[in-house]
């Protein structure tokens, strides 16, 4: 199963390594044409402004929006910001594939970054495995509002940190920097079921 990892900037290598370990074939995506060759796409952590600028200047923006209409996308941290419907602090363009409002750098600066353990919502545990999950927050955003079609799969206190809408997943933390493979397993499962459904979401 070929899974793209947007590789303009960020921790794309960590995502690619995780996907390999789970038996998928990661493809570093830097050109719009490569999106035709992959069944799902990971938008990694990194700087969302840098990624936005390169997506627009290198002609990937429209291709990415088309891709997200039929194929699953997993966004982590900066990737979740790209997937959101609305972005604040500051406001900036986004793909709008997941109906969430997200606030950038919402915990503060790097000294406010943290690693926390969260108990999965029952649905996440049922679809993956039970047990607490280690979540790495680095200059992380907070999801401030979720639309009616969005399911919350993980929370840290009251804040949603993993949400699902249709084929897409958006996480505010970095699962790729821990030993826990559940988020990527869940994403690969969604790619398989999307394939079974003929890619028509």
């Amino acid at each position, binding site marked *: 199963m070929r899974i793209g990892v947007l*590789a303009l900037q960020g921790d794309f290598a960590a995502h690619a390594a995780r996907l390999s370990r789970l038996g998928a074939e990661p493809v570093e995506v830097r050109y719009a044409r490569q999106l035709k060759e992959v069944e799902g796409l990971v938008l990694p952590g*990194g700087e969302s402004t840098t990624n936005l600028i390169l997506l627009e200047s290198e002609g990937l923006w429209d291709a990415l929006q088309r891709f997200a209409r039929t194929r699953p996308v997993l966004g982590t941290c900066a990737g979740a910001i790209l997937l959101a419907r609305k972005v604040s602090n500051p406001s900036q363009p986004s793909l709008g594939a997941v109906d969430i409002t997200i606030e950038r750098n919402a915990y503060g*600066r790097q000294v406010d970054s*943290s690693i926390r353990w969260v108990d999965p919502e029952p649905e996440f545990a049922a679809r993956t495995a039970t047990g607490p999950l280690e979540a790495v927050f680095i*200059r992380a955003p907070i999801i401030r509002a979720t639309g009616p079609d969005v399911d919350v799969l993980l929370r840290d206190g009251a804040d949603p940190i993993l949400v699902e809408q249709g084929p897409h997943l958006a996480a505010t933390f970095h699962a790729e920097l821990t030993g826990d493979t559940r988020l990527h397993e869940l994403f690969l499962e969604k790619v398989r079921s999307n394939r079974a459904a003929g890619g028509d979401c």
Partner: protein
Amino acid sequence: MFLTDEFRLKVGLAEQLKGGVIMDVTDARQAQIAQQAGAVAVMALERVPADIRKEGGVARMASIQKMRQIMETVSIPVMAKARIGHFAEAMVLQALKVDYIDESEVLTPADEAHHIDKHAFKAPFVCGARNLGEALRRIAEGAAMIRTKGEAGSGDIVEAVRHMRAIQRQLRQLTVASRDEIAGHAKDMQAPLELVQWVAKEGRLPVPNFSAGGIATPADASLVMSLGAEAVFVGSGIFKSEDPERRAAAIVKATTFFSDPEKLLEACEDLGKPMPGLDVAKLDESELLQTRGW
């Protein structure tokens, strides 16, 4: 050694900066230009290295007011430089909440024997290195990111290339060394044996390895990325050039597409004049910044 939550968070931010360009800025206006060009972070300092070289005098941490303005202006991470060994400047920078502290040879050293004990800080540190031994000594002290020193403010890429090649060559040598040879390398490099053994097994540094010191063109960025840099720092190269906006964006593009000749050509078009630069081979030994640090 690398498994504490605090150290993982420090390295974690460095991971997010990979494939990007970190740009030296001296005020909020330059920081804004850097962000709009696609910088992943900015480095706040009082003068760019080319000016420090030209004007002389003691180079210190930047003014608090300037750094605050920069932090208020951009949403990307803000790094700032402290003098080698000047842990009080580092305390100020941590209290200011800068995202990364560069214990930098570009500023005038405050201590000729000791670097900062970086494990004692919550803020992450980046340090310069010319070879693997220097890199591992800095990591042992708590640096969560290494950058080659190159020769700052020169616009001459030769030293950054020398340092990146040295580190990569020494990494490769370690991977084929026997146990007793590894101990010998640790002694020669004056680096902790435990760290050298880890590197020999993994074949890489335990923290990201970026390049700095002399990068002035998109092709320079492509060159160091091809040699194994995971991101690049550009100091005087942008704001000492004729057209900083275009050059900054072009270096960002060249860093992302460092192995694509067509994209690299696009990045090199119509940039105006680069910074004038200095031939490092013609500099007096006493004028070098890279020999600061121990």
